[in-house]
């Protein structure tokens, strides 16, 4: 996933973080920086247009694939969308949802949350103290260079094939972008703002909460976004090895038993899952970083 929060500055038509533009009653008029860019984007016609915009390409792609599979010699391994669709409905709207999907999601979210906790916590520590950073950084660089999937065989021996192994693999892979981005974000806290906070007696946990973490939040969110994409990949990989449940396990099982439409349905579900999680993340990010997008827009306007 290449799109990061830092580069992502699209203005949403209904930004809940932006209060209505202040009334220019003073001689120094405030620059109207929250003006909506796309006129009519809020109206029902605009919504329909945007929906059509979003759905256009997927429809074309599915149509093309369908045309391809409708050919006489298209083959066993590329089932038609309708076959995949019915397999999808049959598979995932059954108890397999509880056997495979929920455990996978649980491991994914647990791993992601743990990685976020460790990454941000350690990142703040490293970002604030250059001596700790100098001590720990070489080791971190080494650990970071290890591809997380190679941990699977080791973790099977150490922790068995249960959830602990899978979560560990997810955490080990996800923690790096969060950690490194947090370190950068914390180091980039503006010295003037930091001095201001000191002058006004803002110290200790308040300083951490209102200055450090908020100031570093654009970078932290960028790290979390990368980590979320990694978490999905690692979740599947960790389940493909020794496992008895989960989406990765199910897809491999379908492939080995030549249940091809089912295998495709698994892939589609993973895609949907990734899309939903990423949308949820974007929603949260919009709430957390509304100020940042406005600030950047203001700087560009000057």
């Amino acid at each position: 996933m290449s799109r990061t929060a830092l580069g992502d500055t699209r203005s949403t038509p209904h930004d809940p973080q932006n209060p209505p533009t202040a009334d220019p009653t003073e001689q120094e008029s405030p620059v109207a920086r929250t003006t909506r860019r796309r006129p009519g984007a809020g109206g029902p016609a605009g919504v329909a247009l945007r929906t059509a915009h979003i759905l256009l390409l997927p429809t074309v792609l599915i149509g093309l694939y369908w045309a391809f599979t409708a050919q006489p010699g298209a083959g066993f391994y590329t089932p038609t969308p309708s076959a995949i669709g019915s397999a999808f409905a049959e598979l995932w709207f059954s108890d397999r949802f509880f056997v495979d999907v929920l455990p996978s999601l649980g491991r994914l979210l647990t791993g992601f949350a743990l990685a976020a906790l460790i990454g941000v916590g350690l990142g703040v520590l490293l970002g604030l103290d250059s001596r700790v950073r100098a001590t720990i950084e070489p080791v971190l660089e080494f650990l970071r260079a290890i591809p997380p999937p190679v941990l699977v065989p080791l973790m099977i021996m150490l922790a068995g094939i249960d959830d602990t192994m899978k979560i560990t693999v997810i955490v080990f892979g996800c923690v790096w972008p969060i950690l490194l981005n947090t370190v950068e974000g914390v180091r980039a806290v503006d010295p003037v703002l930091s001095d201001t906070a000191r002058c006004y007696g803002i110290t200790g946990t308040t300083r951490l909460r209102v200055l450090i973490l908020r100031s570093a939040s654009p970078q932290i969110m960028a790290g979390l976004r990368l980590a979320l994409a990694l978490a999905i990949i690692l979740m599947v990989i960790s389940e493909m090895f020794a496992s008895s449940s989960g989406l990765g396990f199910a897809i491999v099982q379908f492939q080995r038993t030549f249940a091809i439409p089912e295998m495709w349905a698994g892939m589609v579900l993973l895609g949907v899952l990734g899309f939903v999680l990423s949308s949820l993340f974007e929603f949260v990010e919009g709430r957390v970083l509304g100020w940042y997008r406005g600030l950047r827009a203001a700087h560009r306007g000057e």
Partner: protein
Amino acid sequence: MTTTHESVPHHLGERPTMLKVTGLQKIYNGGATAVEAVRDLTFELAQGELVCLVGPSGCGKTTLLKCIAGLMPPTNGTVELAGQPVLSPPPGMAVVFQEYGRSLFAWMSVSANVELPLKEKKLPKARRAELVAESLEAVGLTDFADAYPWQLSGGMQQRVAIARAIAYEPQVLLMDEPFAAVDAQTRADLEDLVRQIWKRLGVTVLFVTHDIDEAVYLGERVLVLSNSPTVVQDDVIVDLPVERDQLTTRQDERFTHLRAHVYAQIQQAKKGTPTPAA
């Protein structure tokens, strides 16, 4: 017109000392070379005084201000606020920095920015709301309480910083070239705002600037700093009327005279040959 800093200004004799800087020296040690930014600064501010510090660029004004604010330990010398030595940022001091865009919390509304230091002071909620409303009113930003700082113009952002400083109810207000980055018209308005707030609240103000006109227009007293390594080159009493006006005061013969004097002192300072005050 001028006095040496040993003698107390005539109209301030009654007031106790609020801020006392004694023998302040700051040397930056950077590897093999040590740079002496400030050599030996000694001056006092009486309670309720508005003093401007002016000096040639690069004369260590910011270093001095950071030492006074307790943000940076001096190499030698002491700073005392109301008789207490300043070793870390004291609760009775508020600072307004030049970089308004970087000294406000971009993720907080205007009123939250003003209120945050009051929360840290553990003031009750009602009192906080009162102080925020009063100080925003004093700087003319009542209508913008819920806006974010970056939605405002530069001059208005600096007003937010000033509102935050006065809501803090400091004994001493330090201002580090606060208007250096705003346009000329806004600057004139903000200068009058500072005078007005100072008269109303009776707060002691140390105003650092590189602008001679601004120093003379604002101050009751102007401290002229020498070139780096810095000493106090001159201490000028500004005997202009208390009521000042951008138009008439700046045309006043006395203003022109004082301005010329400070200018001459700074030119001397730039040459690096501190002359004793006339």
